[in-house]
């Protein structure tokens, strides 16, 4: 394998995951939280693809494709929820959507 080794890709994935986690915890807009979630899922995908390359085993790429499909489903549901919140004139703020708080 020419160029950077697997470890360098894993470092990028770790940094990306950290950025995504920060976005989920810091931002209050449900839209930005969803976008940050996508970053975290993609960081995990990058790890899977890097290890698939290192071991020469395609199962990791299959798993990454499954993650992609689940992420698409999650976005469809999440955006549906956000539109429903907007329809009911609820504030678009994850801190104020606390009706189900235990």
């Amino acid at each position, binding site marked *: 394998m020419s*160029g950077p080794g697997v470890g360098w890709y894993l470092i990028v994935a770790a940094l990306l995951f950290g950025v995504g*986690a920060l976005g989920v915890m*810091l931002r209050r807009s449900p*839209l930005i939280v969803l*976008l940050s979630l996508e970053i975290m899922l*993609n960081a995990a995908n990058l790890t899977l693809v890097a290890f698939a*390359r290192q071991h020469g085993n*395609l199962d990791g790429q299959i798993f*990454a494709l499954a993650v992609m499909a689940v992420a698409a*489903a999650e976005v469809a549901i999440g955006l549906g929820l956000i539109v429903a919140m907007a329809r009911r004139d609820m504030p678009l703020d994850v801190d104020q959507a606390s009706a189900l708080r235990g």
Partner: protein
Amino acid sequence: MGDFLVWVVWFVAAGACLGSGIAVVTMNNPFYSALSLIGNLASLAVLYLLLSAEFLAAAQVLVYAGAVMVMFLFVIAYLGGRADAPWAGGSPLLRGAAVVAAAALLVEIVVVLGLAWGDELNGSAEIADSFGSPAEIGRLFLTDHLLAFEITSIVLLIAAVGGVVLGATREKGGATP
């Protein structure tokens, strides 16, 4: 020379990936956040190509940067000014805790990587030219991973139906859908 070129491409793609990721999290306007995420996904596709995951790179651009982000942009356009998201991150204590938690997560991952750096992460398997090609992925999906493939289709169907149910308007005084 080829090795150097791969390093340059990796460096540019990784930098673009992290830069646009930070832009997604810091932008006030969700429209710009979504556009930055498209850049993030595109540079990730370049990294996938460097890892010889050709089909995955193509699917990333088509499914994510294409379909999913268009859905995002439509919803942001539908919400208009209501979607604007100023920082407003709760109390300073909560914000500090969030930063500490993210930093702790990052340190854990980096420490684990550092421990494995010397031996496990060195070298990689020899692969055939067809590694990661659509033909190979398709063959695996229809042989070893057929169940996962079928379940994925059901998950996507349920999500599509759920999205329609959540987004549907109720007629005034009519029956529930």
